[in-house]
């Protein structure tokens, strides 16, 4: 199941129509607390959408970069079997990722898959400018407050 594409083929500025009609679950009893008006959530959603210029589509490579970075954090404090439970292609890549001290880069190999992308010994360079969020928080989990 290739879910790494973020939005699939939808590139428009609006939500793609779901394949199935969305099912509106009855409100969970545990969630009936708080009492924040719905219209505030609506306005927050609009504000967010305009702020990011409706750019909701995430290309696969961007998604994989973020995923690899997060999984790299995860590898510190999370049992590896959780990582192994991943199903998408990028996760399989991450599963075999390793940090090479000499070349200062992450190296990993794609597992053979039905996917058309089969990069052998793909290398993710450890770029500090990856994202402002993550770059500032590298090894945050290693600090010990992850759980």
């Amino acid at each position, binding site marked *: 199941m290739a879910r790494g594409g973020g939005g699939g083929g939808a590139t428009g500025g609006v939500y793609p129509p779901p*394949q199935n009609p969305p099912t*509106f679950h009855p409100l969970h009893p545990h969630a009936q607390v708080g009492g924040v008006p719905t219209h505030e959530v609506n306005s927050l959603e609009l504000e967010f959408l305009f*702020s990011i210029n409706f750019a*909701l589509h995430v290309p696969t490579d961007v998604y994989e970069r973020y995923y690899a970075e997060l999984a790299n*954090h995860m590898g510190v404090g999370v049992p590896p079997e*959780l990582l192994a439970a991943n199903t998408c292609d990028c996760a399989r890549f991450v599963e075999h990722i390793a940090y090479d001290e000499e070349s200062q880069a992450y190296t990993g190999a794609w597992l053979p898959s039905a996917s058309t992308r089969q990069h052998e010994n793909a290398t993710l360079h450890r770029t500090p400018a990856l994202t402002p*969020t993550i770059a500032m*928080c590298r090894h*945050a989990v290693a600090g010990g407050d*992850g759980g």
Partner: protein
Amino acid sequence: MATPGSNAATMERGKAFVQVLSCVLSRLVESNDALAASGGVEVPPITKFHALRPPSISILDYCTRIHRYASCSPECFVLALVYIDRLIQRNNLLLTSLNVHRIIITAVMLAAKFFDDQYFNNAYYAKVRG
């Protein structure tokens, strides 16, 4: 079709994502709060995301709550991080303890709507938000 996050393995994976994401955001908020308190940076204008005072719930608890009740797929949290990064990069925005909660719930909500096949309506998210 199974609801996202219905089976145990997906739940565990989601929990792992939530822990990492909340830890990353906590670190960022900590450093930004210190930065804003020291006056070393020009404080960006108040937006709709700003609360009057910092919510008492921690980011980890808040993300765990979202994960539990919004029942979105773990990938949504990765997408939410991408969206938050875009928000920071495109706007003069400082992620602080005043606005991080609303930004998180909005980003996760958008990610679930855009990516997942099933999602809740905004009224439900309003209740999850607390």
